[in-house]
């Protein structure tokens, strides 16, 4: 059906929603903007939560970080649900073809047994770290303030479940789907001295009350060090020692880290730039958790790559934090 309309009568009355216009002016808005800004409720919550009667349902007081505008945490990736799942779907398609190539050609048989053992002991248990990260990010999403940061925390939380599942599949490839490698890796996680520092760090962080502190301890500190140590250095070590094909299986997490680091760095930078009080608090958290993380990762770093590995990872992390305006 054709409708004959004079084009002049089809001028829009307004370009976007009023709260978006107040922030960005009277012009067409992006989907990220309309999906994100001022969507969360701010007042008149009716009932105090039975589980935390000292707070409102949505409350800025659940972290010691203070922001004038919690929507300052713009996601550099501008992920709203649709753009988020479409990005991950593309990445998983590549991952899927990598995994099936690896399995179909049975590439595991080309990898020396001791390297396989090393992967089961040093890489596969990281699925439990991802599980902790899932909890910590979902925690921030549920108790944090303002959609800009809480939606990104949820995407991150779900990503971590995905990462845990990809790491688990490495175990299943190595044990021909028996689950033995996963059980073995879990025993290392539970009992092997080499993992106890990291496990204790994860358990402690899961119990942290301040959601922003938990984010710093997980996404900025522990993940920052593990990315450098495991997905860059250990990956290189594997490549140099006959395990280069593992890269196909960790490529998803590597690429994921690249886009996620951009977001993590932006969050830290924005919070630090807001006030001296925030900056001091962040540095205090970073000081405490970085020291713990370095101690926890030391035996792993040594066994994965060698004695200098951890210092290199720390250096890279500190550079990122410096760029965010911290520890200078």
């Amino acid at each position, binding site marked *: 059906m054709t409708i004959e*309309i004079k084009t002049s*009568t*089809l001028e*829009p*009355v307004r370009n*976007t*929603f*009023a*709260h978006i216009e107040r922030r960005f002016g009277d012009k067409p808005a992006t989907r990220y903007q*309309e*999906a994100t800004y001022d*969507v969360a*409720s701010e*007042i008149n*919550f*009716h*009932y105090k*939560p*039975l*589980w935390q009667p000292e707070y409102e*349902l949505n409350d800025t007081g659940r972290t010691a970080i203070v922001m004038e505008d919690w929507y300052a945490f713009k996601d550099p990736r501008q992920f709203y*649900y*649709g753009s988020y*799942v479409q990005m*991950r*779907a*593309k990445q*998983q*398609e590549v991952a899927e073809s990598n995994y099936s190539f690896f399995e179909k050609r049975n590439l595991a048989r080309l990898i020396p047994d001791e390297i396989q053992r090393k992967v089961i002991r040093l890489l596969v248990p990281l*699925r*439990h770290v991802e*599980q902790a990260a*899932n*909890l910590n990010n*979902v925690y921030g*999403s*549920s*108790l944090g303030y303002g959609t800009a940061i*809480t*939606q990104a925390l*949820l*995407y991150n939380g*779900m*990503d971590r*479940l*995905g990462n845990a*599942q990809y790491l*688990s*599949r490495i175990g299943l490839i190595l044990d021909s*789907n028996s689950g033995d490698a*996963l059980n073995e890796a*879990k025993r290392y*996680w*539970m009992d092997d001295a080499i993992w106890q520092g990291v*496990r*204790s760090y994860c*358990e*402690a962080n*899961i*119990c942290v009350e301040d959601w922003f502190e938990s984010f710093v301890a997980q996404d900025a500190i522990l993940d920052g060090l593990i990315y450098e140590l495991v997905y860059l250095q250990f990956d290189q070590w594997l490549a140099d020692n006959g395990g280069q094909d593992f890269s196909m299986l960790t490529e998803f997490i590597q690429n994921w880290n690249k886009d996620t680091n951009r977001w993590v760095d932006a969050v830290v930078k924005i919070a630090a730039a807001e006030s001296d009080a925030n900056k001091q608090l962040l540095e205090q958290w970073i000081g405490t958790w970085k020291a713990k993380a370095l101690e926890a990762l030391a035996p792993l770093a040594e066994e994965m790559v060698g004695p200098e590995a951890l210092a290199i990872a720390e250096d890279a992390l500190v550079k990122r934090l410096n760029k965010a305006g911290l520890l200078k």
Partner: protein
Amino acid sequence: MAAKKLNIKDKYRLLTRDLDWDFSYEDRKQAFPYEEFEGIKITDWNKWEDPFRLTMDSYWKYQAEKEKKLYAIFDAFSQNNGHLNVVDSRYVNALKLFLTGVSPLEYQAYQGFAHVGRQFSGVGARVACQMQSLDELRHVQTQIHAMSHYNKFFDGFQEFSHMHDRVWYLSVPRSFFCDARSAGPFEFMVAIGFSFEYVLTNLLFVPFMSGAAHNGDMATVTFGFSAQSDEARHMTLGLEVIKFLLEQHEDNVPIVQKWIDKWFWRGTRLLTIVAMMMDYMLPNKVMSWKEAWEVYFEEAGGALFKDLARYGIRMPKYAETIEKEKEHISHQAWWTFYTHGHAAGFHTWIPSDKELDWLSAQYPDTFDKYYRPLWELAKEQEAKGERFYTSGLPQLCQTCQIPMLFTEMDNPNQNSMRDSVFEDERYHFCSDGCKDIFDEEPEKYVQSWLPVHQIFQGNCGGPGVEDVLSDYYKMNVGVDNMDIKGSPDEKRWNEWKGIA
């Protein structure tokens, strides 16, 4: 050796359920502190049956496919000025009510499921709730995007978020979700996961989206059905939660029954708005509210409760009252909005003669007897140039926050009023159901932020109602509100359509 193929159940167990571990360095109770205070007894989380077994890679894949289709349609819709294809400008007011009243609930559902998706100590339940949380975020965002185009051409969408936190009739849906989120994690699951998702959202989405299809609104049909495809997973989760709680411990049965009674009552009150949308706001009708209620509550819900009888669960309390109410509530609600049309953020109108006849046919036992005469009177008034608006502000029910518009079901000429005294204050209710809910937890419901009380107390600006509407609610008075006749919406529509 060729690897054995894992079936979906084993694969899901290995990839998800085994990720958790027993703590050695901290007390796990400190990590999951809210599981005990409601009195629910969980003896073994391992007995949890995963309602669906999507790993994240499949989740991303399937959801991205849905999103791609959906946004392709949104783009086409706005590029082709799809709003011109709706049946008439009255229809769009249903969407205004949807965006201001329902979409923000999706947001609260996201928050609520994120909370329980963090707080349950059983990994299976937790992951299922997390996925639902992510889905709910999807729903609010796709709804905003679907409405974004309408917002450019019609009034009343532009302050949906601001209005949701403040406006008198929007406190009905809002307080419903605030109530559920402020409850403990298990009550939240019975309230939203089970009562709302399993039975009541069908009534919200399916007939309403079919209605959109019938009224030329492609954007809404598309987001509605696309959202509903996630809903099937959510319903399965809701049912699993109930079965799990009931199987875990017999002491859970009376607690769960009490929550079912509460949340079905609260849910049916909330759906009054949907009833009104279906019977009055859709120019082309799909089915009456009464019929939708029969298909999705009485038939589908009846089957469900028969299934649950083996656990000792019975139909929700006041089911008989609810059954009678299907004949009345849509009419009582639209009449209330019509008479308070100056204080609503959307337009109201008198049903056309054809629509009045349809209502007479759909509601043979009640419409001609109780409601048609009101509309005939309104028509006379309007013809005389005296379109009727009530000047007062309605008294609200302390629990559901709906104006006291409901009548006794055995005597539809008599308004239904109940009250209770708590700490020397008297509180008013629209029904026995709402009074029961208050009496069970008065400390909670005395906190209700009742919009009309708040206006009288001077907490919403003023002094006049018009000041509250324009300054506190940010309504564009004289534009967003009042009758559709003479509204800018109607004027523009007629210009676009070349109607003189």
